[in-house]
């Protein structure tokens, strides 16, 4: 049929009706025509209405709406065709509800797409883009006005005519027509509302189209009975859906039977009736107005004779009816004056409803006449409210609202709508009004957008109450912008909950889940509400999720900072940083890093050479362990089943991606067990109590080669919904290039990205038999166990790095020792491990510095088969031990006065009470190692006189003195070719002749000495750069030359240089350059029995061999055989780099000034020096007078005794040239006067020399002294002026050592 009449779609041109309130009022205030149909006709039209949806009254209304005919000065006379049902009070609420559905089609999802008000500044823009956010309001108002009637107060709904329709199929149509409406006995509803029943009647017979003769006969019959003007015949064609009654403007009007009926009605019947009624009513009013008395009588009479209501109508209702009729005829002036007259009859106190209704009509009349309405509507609304007529007050408010809107008084309008909406009215109506109130608030010059949003939220609540979900969601969604992210917890919760529900109901599942997440993010709800939220969430997710998997879950919270990844190479270790340095060093060693060396201008663009961080390489079939912390933020316990790691796997060849972002149900588990997945995960079940935090350790095993990215946790929430929680690790913000600076770019965090490579061997390492405690200097043996855990692959190229490289020596003897060459290099162990093999590497530990140690060992190894992705792997192990204090050594050196090239060495050994272990120590042996020097005991000659000086109880000191003298071959045989080789003189002095000596040049004693020196390397580094480049003065580097002299007592074994030949100093050549001749290393060997100090220590040696010097390794190895007794301990204290030559302060290689004490074995490892400030300037010069000690001279014969002397001068510095000026001094010169008398000698011959001494050069100067008489003379009277390297600065030196000559008179 014709589209324009499908009731659902509102034709566009009709919206104009809704916009104009005037038209709405006119369509509301229109004459009502009552339509009464016989049951047959009702059935007939019902049948038709099921197909078109139009009831008969609808069809009739169509005829009315489009009338263009002007009549009786009316703009457009409309008729409202109603049925009896319309007059029932119950129908009113129904029609209100119908009205709300009529605007459903206009409901929108958003007021304005993709726009939300967040701040005040958004409001003007909103007005710009969205001028009419609520287009349905006017339509709703139109329908509301039309359907809202109160027949007891107003007469607009009282029928003005009645249409009686029967069908020819009824048994007695005429009789039925008579019975259907009897003016004398009208339906009860007429009496109830005091309506006039004497209204024109129109009789219609419905007849089928086909039998024309029959119908004409019936019509004439009707005309006879009811009169010709009142009888009509309606022919219908049963074939057509609506019986051919539908109004079609295009066709000729006459052709349709209804046209005639309706136009007769509007042209003849109704005008006639209205005219008659107005006359009658005027008469009645005038008659009743004559006296006050009659008025009263009438009223009383009305009350008394309620049965005769039709005849005894009150004057008020007559007046009202009259006014309404004028209004119907759109004669607003007359109506207004009548209403005003009527108003006088009512009072606000007694009859507020009538009072209000009249006031409303006055207001409407004024509005229609474009006059000021003043406060008429307010009065009407207030009185309606007082009398409980809320629906009517809404109507008045709507009209008032329009008036206020025209005046742009939005503030009043907003308040009006809001106050009306808060009454007890239809929720949909309240919602519409609140929504209007909200938008009115936005219209202020200074918009109260927060208040507006609050109104919208309330509107949303009301819409929800009226179950208009689309409207509700729109309201909530719009106002959410104002509150979002501002911490208004209660409001947020309220909105979130609403948004969750209505998004879900509207099918916006993703939004719904988003809001659930937000809802649960903030934990400020009560226990109960959280419980229901969770349940709602589960329900929503379950009913919407595809394959029971919803993707990202809102819970639990993951503490991303605490997420850690452990590979199988590593044990659980918290301080990764400690290992990192060693790992980096291995990386460098394996030349994995190929960082370009940048120079010059490239430095400016060094950012471009930045090496991109790579993902870690892991080995297939080895588990990755992820430790993470999850938290339940809620106050309700949450159950999570099968928590596992979620990962994606990318096959490197096929580029196919697989992931396990799907429920890990039993099928998935089975598939995983069968190896159908590229990786395997383990799962755990857990229950998180309220606010509980739990640490999870989960593992994943890659089964194929490719790229594996761990994404997060997969879990089943509360046993019903599967989903995941993604890890969100911290990413570095990139800020290097301009592009990065201009935008926000993050570096990808590759912690959870792995490239899976082919199988590799896996090494496990462990320290065994490692001592828990050591004394300072003590040496003990331990082992490092290496186990290849792989049963397929062998491994090779094992290297070791230690956190304290100087504490351990790998190996058991000189031949298999693995020695460190520099402190930052690694130790190569010559080991290859076949699959499954275990190897134990012996090693020595020495307590170097007192303290507590955590010795970490990082082992590097490569696969035998080789692997291009993963060149090497690392294994870790660690152990803790203590180093306790033992002995302390201080050394002291001084020039010998007897020999220019000899020096004194004092050693003070101290067993401290404070800081010491309380043990008794026995000194066993002292050894010196130097290139050029040897030591000889001075404290005793043959044997140690008293053993007690070698036994140190706590708190005891002992002093030992030695002489330092050059080895025989010093300064000989400079062999340039073998300069690299070391020439070391080793002196071993044993304190106990009965015991074998320790070999101080063998493993590991010597290595530890070297290590200790290396640990002081940094200390020397600076010196190297200054003085190290002058090797010229150093003695001959005779290759492999090693003099070892054992100044033991009984058997002074001259050690052959057999082992020493192979003994290479591991110290780099660079360092040996710094080896100065002025250096001596001392080793003091001690033994101790820890718990029983009284026990005599008897180190047993192997009896088969002659008591030769044994290596330490052998000695110690045999000690445990004593069995039962506490293991004796031994240790070596090294006093390294003792310098003793007089030195120049500038000569930093010889930093220690001569003649000072040095605490060489401080337990803290620091060298303490006590420097006499007067010794700051020292010249590297030794000088000595050589003369006979006594002279026989005959003074009688020759009164002058002239004696030749020699002044020996030696430049000790290997680098500096000395300019010397030697002056002899008179005995009294620079001395006091009295001494002149006693010193009777003077110098003869050359008394001044100017010489230059090259580095390490010695010279003898001849001097002559004259004595005049016998006596003992101190002839140390000379002055040496020294300049170093021809510098400006010079200094005078005087001899401080007496040189006495005894001159005897040999008379």
């Amino acid at each position, binding site marked *: 049929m014709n589209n324009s009449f499908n009731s659902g779609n509102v034709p566009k041109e009709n919206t104009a009706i809704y916009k104009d309130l005037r038209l709405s009022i006119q369509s509301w205030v229109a004459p009502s025509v009552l339509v009464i149909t016989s049951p047959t006709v009702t059935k007939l039209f019902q049948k038709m209405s099921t197909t078109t949806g139009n009831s008969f009254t609808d069809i009739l209304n169509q005829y009315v709406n489009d009338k263009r005919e002007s009549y009786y000065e009316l703009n457009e006379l409309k008729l409202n065709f109603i049925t009896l049902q319309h007059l029932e009070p119950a129908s009113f609420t129904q029609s209100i509800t119908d009205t709300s559905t009529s605007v459903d089609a206009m409901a929108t999802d958003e007021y304005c797409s993709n726009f939300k008000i967040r701040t005040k500044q958004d409001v003007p823009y909103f007005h710009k883009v969205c001028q009419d956010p609520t287009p349905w309001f006017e339509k709703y108002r139109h329908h509301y006005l039309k359907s809202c009637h109160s027949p007891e107060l107003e007469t607009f709904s009282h029928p003005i005519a009645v249409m009686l329709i029967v069908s020819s199929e009824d048994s007695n149509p005429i009789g039925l027509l008579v019975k259907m409406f009897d003016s004398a006995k009208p339906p009860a509803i007429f009496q109830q509302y005091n309506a006039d029943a004497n209204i024109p009647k129109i009789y219609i017979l419905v007849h089928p189209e086909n039998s024309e003769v029959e119908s004409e006969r019936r019509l004439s019959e009707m005309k006879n009975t009811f009169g010709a003007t009142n009888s009509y015949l309606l022919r219908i064609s049963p074939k057509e859906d609506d019986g051919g009654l539908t109004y079609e403007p295009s066709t000729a009007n006459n052709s349709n039977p209804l046209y005639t009926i309706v136009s007769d009605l509007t042209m003849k019947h109704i005008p006639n009736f209205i005219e008659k009624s107005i006359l009658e009513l005027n008469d009645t009013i005038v008659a009743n107005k004559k006296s006050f008395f009659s008025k009263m009588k009438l009223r009383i009479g009305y009350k008394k004779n309620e049965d005769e209501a039709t005849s005894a109508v009150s004057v008020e209702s007559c007046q009202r009816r009259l006014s309404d009729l004028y209004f119907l005829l759109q004669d607003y002036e007359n109506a207004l004056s009548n209403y005003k007259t009527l108003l006088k009859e009512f009072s606000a106190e007694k009859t507020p409803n009538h009072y209000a209704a009249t006031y409303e009509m006055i207001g409407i009349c004024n509005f229609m006449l474009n006059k000021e309405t003043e406060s008429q509507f307010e009065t009407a609304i207030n009185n309606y409210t007082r009398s409980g007529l809320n629906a009517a007050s809404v109507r008045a408010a709507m009209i008032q609202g329009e008036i206020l809107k025209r005046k742009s008084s939005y503030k009043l309008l907003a308040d009006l709508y809001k106050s009306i909406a808060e009454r007890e009215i239809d929720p949909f109506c309240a919602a519409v009004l609140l929504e209007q109130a909200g938008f009115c608030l936005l219209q202020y010059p*200074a918009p*109260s957008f927060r*208040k507006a949003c*609050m109104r919208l939220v309330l509107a949303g609540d009301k819409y929800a109450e009226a179950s208009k979900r689309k409207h509700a969601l729109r309201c909530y969604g719009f106002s959410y912008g104002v509150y979002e992210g501002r911490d*208004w917890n*209660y*409001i947020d919760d309220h909105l979130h909950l609403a948004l969750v529900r209505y998004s879900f109901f509207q099918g916006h599942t993703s939004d719904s889940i988003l809001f659930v997440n937000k809802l649960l993010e903030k934990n400020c709800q009560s226990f109960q509400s959280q419980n229901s939220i969770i349940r709602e969430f589960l329900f929503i997710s379950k009913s919407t999720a595809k394959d029971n998997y919803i993707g990202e879950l809102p819970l639990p919270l993951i503490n991303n900072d605490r997420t850690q990844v452990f590979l199988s190479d590593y044990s659980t270790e918290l301080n990764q940083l400690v290992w990192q340095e060693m790992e980096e060093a291995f990386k460098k060693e394996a030349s994995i890093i190929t960082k370009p060396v940048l120079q010059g201008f490239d430095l400016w663009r060094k950012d471009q050479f930045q090496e991109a961080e790579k993902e870690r390489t892991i080995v297939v079939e080895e588990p990755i362990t992820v430790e993470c912390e999850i938290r339940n933020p809620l106050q309700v316990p949450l159950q999570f089943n099968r928590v596992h790691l979620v990962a994606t796997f990318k096959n490197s060849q096929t580029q196919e991606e697989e992931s396990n972002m799907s429920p890990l149900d039993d099928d998935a588990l089975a598939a995983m067990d069968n190896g159908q997945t590229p990786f395997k995960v383990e799962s755990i079940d857990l229950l998180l109590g309220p606010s509980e935090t739990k640490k999870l350790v989960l593992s994943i095993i890659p089964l194929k080669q490719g790229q594996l990215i761990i994404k997060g946790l997969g879990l089943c929430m509360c046993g019903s919904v599967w989903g995941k929680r993604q890890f969100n690790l911290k990413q570095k913000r990139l800020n290097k290039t301009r592009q990065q600076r201009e935008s926000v770019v993050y570096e990808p965090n590759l912690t959870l990205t792995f490239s899976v490579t082919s199988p590799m061997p896996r090494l496990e390492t462990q320290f065994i038999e490692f001592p828990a405690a050591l004394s300072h200097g003590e040496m003990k043996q331990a082992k490092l166990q290496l186990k290849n855990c792989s049963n397929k692959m062998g491994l090779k190229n094992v290297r070791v790095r230690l956190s304290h490289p100087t504490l351990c020596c790998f190996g058991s003897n000189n031949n298999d020792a693995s020695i460190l060459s520099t402190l930052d290099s690694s130790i190569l162990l010559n080991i290859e491990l076949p699959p499954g093999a275990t190897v134990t590497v012996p090693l020595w530990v020495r307590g170097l510095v007192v303290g507590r140690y955590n010795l970490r060992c990082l082992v590097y190894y490569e696969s035998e088969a080789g692997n291009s992705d993963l060149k090497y792997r690392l294994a870790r192990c660690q152990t803790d031990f203590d180093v306790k204090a033992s002995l302390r050594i201080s050394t002291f050196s001084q020039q010998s006065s007897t020999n220019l090239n000899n020096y004194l060495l004092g050693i003070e050994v101290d067993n401290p009470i404070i800081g010491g272990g309380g043990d008794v120590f026995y000194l066993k042996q002292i050894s010196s190692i130097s290139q050029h020097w040897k030591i000889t005991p001075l404290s005793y000659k043959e044997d140690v006189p008293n053993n007690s000086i070698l036994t140190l109880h706590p708190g005891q000191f002992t002093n030992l003195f030695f002489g330092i003298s050059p080895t025989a071959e010093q300064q000989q045989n400079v062999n340039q070719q073998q300069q690299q080789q070391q020439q070391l003189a080793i002196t071993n002095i044993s304190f106990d002749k009965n015991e074998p000596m320790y070999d101080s040049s063998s493993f590991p004693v010597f290595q530890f000495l070297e290590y200790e020196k290396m640990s002081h390397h940094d200390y020397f580094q600076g010196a190297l750069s200054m003085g190290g480049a002058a090797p010229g003065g150093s003695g001959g580097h005779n290759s492999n030359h090693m003099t070892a002299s054992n100044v033991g007592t009984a058997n002074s074994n001259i050690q052959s240089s057999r082992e020493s030949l192979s003994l290479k100093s591991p110290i780099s050549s660079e360092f040996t350059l710094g080896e100065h001749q002025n250096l001596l290393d001392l080793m003091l060997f001690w033994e101790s029995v820890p718990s029983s100090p009284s026990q005599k220590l008897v180190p047993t040696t192997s009896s088969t061999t002659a008591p030769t010097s044994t290596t330490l390794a052998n000695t110690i190895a045999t000690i445990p055989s004593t069995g039962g007794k506490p293991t004796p301990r031994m240790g070596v204290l090294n006093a390294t780099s003792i310098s003793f030559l007089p030195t120049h302060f500038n000569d930093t290689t010889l930093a220690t000034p001569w003649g000072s004490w040095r605490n060489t074995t401080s337990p803290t490892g620091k060298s303490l020096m006590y420097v006499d400030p007067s010794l700051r300037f020292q010249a590297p010069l030794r000088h000595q007078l050589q003369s006979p000690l006594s002279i026989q001279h005959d003074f009688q014969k020759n009164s002058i005794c002239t004696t030749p002397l020699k002044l020996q001068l030696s430049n000790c510095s290997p680098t500096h040239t000395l300019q010397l000026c030697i002056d002899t001094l008179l005995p009294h010169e620079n001395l006091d006067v009295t001494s002149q008398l006693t010193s009777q000698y003077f110098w003869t011959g050359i008394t001044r020399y100017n010489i230059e001494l090259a580095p390490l050069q010695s010279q003898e100067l001849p001097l002559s002294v004259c004595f005049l008489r016998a006596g003992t003379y101190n002839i140390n009277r000379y002055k040496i002026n020294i300049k170093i390297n021809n510098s400006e600065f010079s200094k005078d030196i005087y001899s401080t050592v007496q040189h006495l000559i005894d001159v005897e008179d040999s008379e």
Partner: protein
Amino acid sequence: MKKIVCVAVVGKANDPLYFQDFSGGTEENRLKLHYIVHCSLDIIEDKPGVKKVSNDMYLGLLYPTEDYKVYGFLTNTKIKFIIVVLDTTDIKDSDIKVLHLRYVRTASNPFYKANKKIESKIFQNDVAAIVQSL
């Protein structure tokens, strides 16, 4: 029934720093108070800019609702103090200044981060004491 129904401190960015409901009402009522306090921000914003005489920060009655009256106080650092009282009573500016003083004391704590939620127990007790005393 106490006079003061609710005390709120709202930060510079219009986020609640402190909110305490003294009405002892239902959750629904508390929600309503949240809305009331939130809406009062509209009015505070509309008040003619920062006053020239900066020592008077009291804004007076912001607006009356059906059951309540809302009073405001705006500091120079845009911290808002909003007090909701029962319709039948009113408060003096000195009352709200006491509250401001307490806030200043709390904010002076070096551990308090400016424009963050006030979690100080002392402040809570102080506010409760003020409410009791009125």
